[in-house]
């Protein structure tokens, strides 16, 4: 794309730049909703008298969902810096704000980590010493799957994510005030390459620790990539929805149809990528038919999990594939909004399908507990994002390439 130096970038006083008062009510409302929902979930969970088993599983699904948005955003911002992308600058701040939820996600991980630390093995069977030492395969894994090392790893992941996301946001915001700091951006770019490597490893191992180890006997080398595909889908959908919402309030008007088109293309591309990874994993396990691997899919083709599996093929791939194929849909606000919501919902179903068969064999269900956990975590993080956005520009006005980004056109 050619530079367009004659087009003015956004000025600091532009009213569309700041959320201002529209954030306040939303923040309060969402935070209240989140707290109420989570408290309800907690009460429901405690009253079940199952050592918190149902609660922890339901909470983990919702947590994996919000985590995927945060990690997707962090990965996405890192990528934009790494490849020096110009088109995305107008939406980069939104990504930075979403990514910066990492410390809050660390706090929200505590309801999962603390019971595990206390020796509750309802969620992670490998917490159970007896099981680990009575099984001839599992006892070999005890060096990795143990409470101490798990906690250390969690601290490392969330520590890195928190530091890296805050670093990216802080650098970007400080540039807003001082446009002459092009060198600042160069340094971020330089750091984004090792940052990307660290992202690859932390996302992979977080997926293994939080999700794959729910069934400590099962393993798949592609698992990290599978979760990663979901993260990228989720973050693009969330960015589309936030942008559309802000625009309905007259904010973030710098984002044009062209940017929506690109976000839609990414959503489409990673929907296909998800299908590719999911198919690769399924086909290889199905074909080789080795009992220690097929267990994973046996769980998911029995009982009404089979219907969920079929739904994922259609809902997570076939429908959005045809839905997002057309250029007109990607450039259409309602069309794109619909598919973003759709992808976020099926992404939740996907995570539910990954996690819940370990809770309940042969019987897929979605109840009040699942709903309250999901609503609770989603609203809390939305509130946190909006609160963080308050007082900051919604667009990185200090970026020298902003005008090029605003004038960007798909060819």
């Amino acid at each position, binding site marked *: 794309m050619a530079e367009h130096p004659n087009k003015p970038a956004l000025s600091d006083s532009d009213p569309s730049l700041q959320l201002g008062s529209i954030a306040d009510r939303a923040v309060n409302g969402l935070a209240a909703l989140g707290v109420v929902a989570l408290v309800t979930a907690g009460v429901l969970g405690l009253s079940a008298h199952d050592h918190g088993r149902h609660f922890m599983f339901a909470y983990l699904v919702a947590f994996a969902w919000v985590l995927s948005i945060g990690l997707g955003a962090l990965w996405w911002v890192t990528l934009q810096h790494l490849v020096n992308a110009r088109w995305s600058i107008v939406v980069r701040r939104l990504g930075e704000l979403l990514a910066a939820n990492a410390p809050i996600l660390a706090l929200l991980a505590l309801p999962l980590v603390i019971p595990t630390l206390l020796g509750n093995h309802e969620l992670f069977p490998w917490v159970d010493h007896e099981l680990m030492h009575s099984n001839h395969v599992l006892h070999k894994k005890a060096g990795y799957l143990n409470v101490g090392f798990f906690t250390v790893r969690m601290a490392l992941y969330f520590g890195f994510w928190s530091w890296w996301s805050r670093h990216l946001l802080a650098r970007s915001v400080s540039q807003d005030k001082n446009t002459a700091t092009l060198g600042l951006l160069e340094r971020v770019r330089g750091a984004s390459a090792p940052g990307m490597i660290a992202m690859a490893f932390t996302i992979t191992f977080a997926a293994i620790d939080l999700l794959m180890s729910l069934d400590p006997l099962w393993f798949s080398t592609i698992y990290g990539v599978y979760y990663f595909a979901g993260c990228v889908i989720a973050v693009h959908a969330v960015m589309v929805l936030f942008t559309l919402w802000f625009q309905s309030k007259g904010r973030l008007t710098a984002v044009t149809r062209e940017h929506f088109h690109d976000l839609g293309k990414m959503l489409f591309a990673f929907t296909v990528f998800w299908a590719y990874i999911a198919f690769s994993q399924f*086909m290889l396990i199905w074909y080789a038919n080795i009992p220690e691997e097929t267990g994973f899919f046996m769980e998911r083709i029995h009982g009404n999990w089979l219907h969920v599996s079929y739904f994922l093929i259609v809902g997570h791939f076939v429908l959005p594939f045809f839905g997002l194929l057309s250029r007109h849909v990607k450039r259409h606000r309602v069309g794109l909004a619909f598919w973003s919501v759709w992808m976020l919902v099926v992404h939740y179903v996907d995570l539910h399908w990954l996690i819940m068969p370990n809770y309940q064999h042969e019987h897929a269900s979605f109840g009040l507990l699942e709903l309250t956990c999901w609503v609770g975590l989603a609203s809390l993080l939305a509130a946190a994002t909006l609160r963080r956005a308050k007082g900051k520009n919604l667009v990185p006005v200090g970026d020298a390439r902003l005008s090029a980004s605003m004038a960007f056109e798909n060819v």
Partner: protein
Amino acid sequence: MSDSSGVSNQEPSLPSGDVPLFGVLAEYSTPQQLLAASRVVRDAGYTRWDTYTPFPVHGIDGAMGIRPTILPWIVLGAGLTGVAAGVALQWATNAFDYRWIVSGKPFWSIPANIPITFELMVLFSALTALVGMLVLNGLPHPSHPLDLKQRFLRVTDDKFFLVIQADDPSFKLEMARELLAGTSPVVVETVDEDRVTSDRLPRPLVLGLMLLVVAAAVPFGLAAKARASTSREPRFHVVPDMDFQPKMKADRANPLFDDQRATRAQVDGTVAAGELHENTAFWTGRVDGVLVTSFPEESPTSEAAVTRGRERFGVYCAPCHGLVGRGDGMVSKRAELLAEGTWTPPSDLQQDYIRTMPVGQLFETITNGVRTMPAYGPQIPAADRWNIVLYVRALQRSRATSSSDLPASQRDSLK
């Protein structure tokens, strides 16, 4: 004829008497000038006109008012056709016409069919994208009046051209020329229809092509002749295919031994290790030369034996005798389709004379073969042969039961 006066010629040549006018040509040196000119021509209401550029100038679609092509829809249709073709091909060949068990996978294995379905989708779409583009663009288009313009040769290099065709309904030479002159062109010229070049292929080329076609038919002719005639000559070995191997076959002569026999007989009075078969009922199906009518002690009847027999039957017998023993196995069906004439169909195991055979005879038949059926003794252990016999009995029984065989309670439920 066409102008040959070089680039500096600003005066367009007038159409000469009998050569009709193709249109008016204007040349520009930058894409921006061309875009501006295109808007002027578009707004003037012309429909039969075009611009020619060395690369796709962006924005020209809008400037010329070109509507989006339907090519993507055609390609989508081709892609869906590819999917259908992929599914149909694999279903018809592996799940319908030639069902064969491979590595325990179902005949109709959808996960295993996805790669090829996907590839055919891409193949069909890609071919359609190229061919569709060519067809919609009217290519190949070997000859064009503009080819006669020397300056037009630079259209594929660095110059930009606009042509208003004479067959436009509102075309008037002077008006068109005036319109174009107002768009700051390098030059405006008229273009004549091509009455110079011939659209016939050169004669040597045509002859060469005809020769090739004739030559290409020769091998097919020879093959057809060979098929329609008989010959006493041995087969023509283009590829030896291991037809001649330096090894001894069972009934051939071997000069190494006095008796010239390749197959060596056992030394009298010896028994190979593990080959002392004293219980002849089990090993041969006969006791004192008489066929046994009940299963030997070593191979008692049981459900496990039937199950084993069924599995072995599926491996060794079903290819010819069919899964229920009606003599309709895949090999037999194929052989009958080929109608070679030498094929002896396998027996229908449900025939009465086979039903009444002593089990010893069934065992012996499996062991030593009969008619064209080879001996399976060397391949199938004796216990498994007995299990197969048992399963054959079960098959026969399954096809000749009456309701009186059922327990009373179940018989009632049928009524």
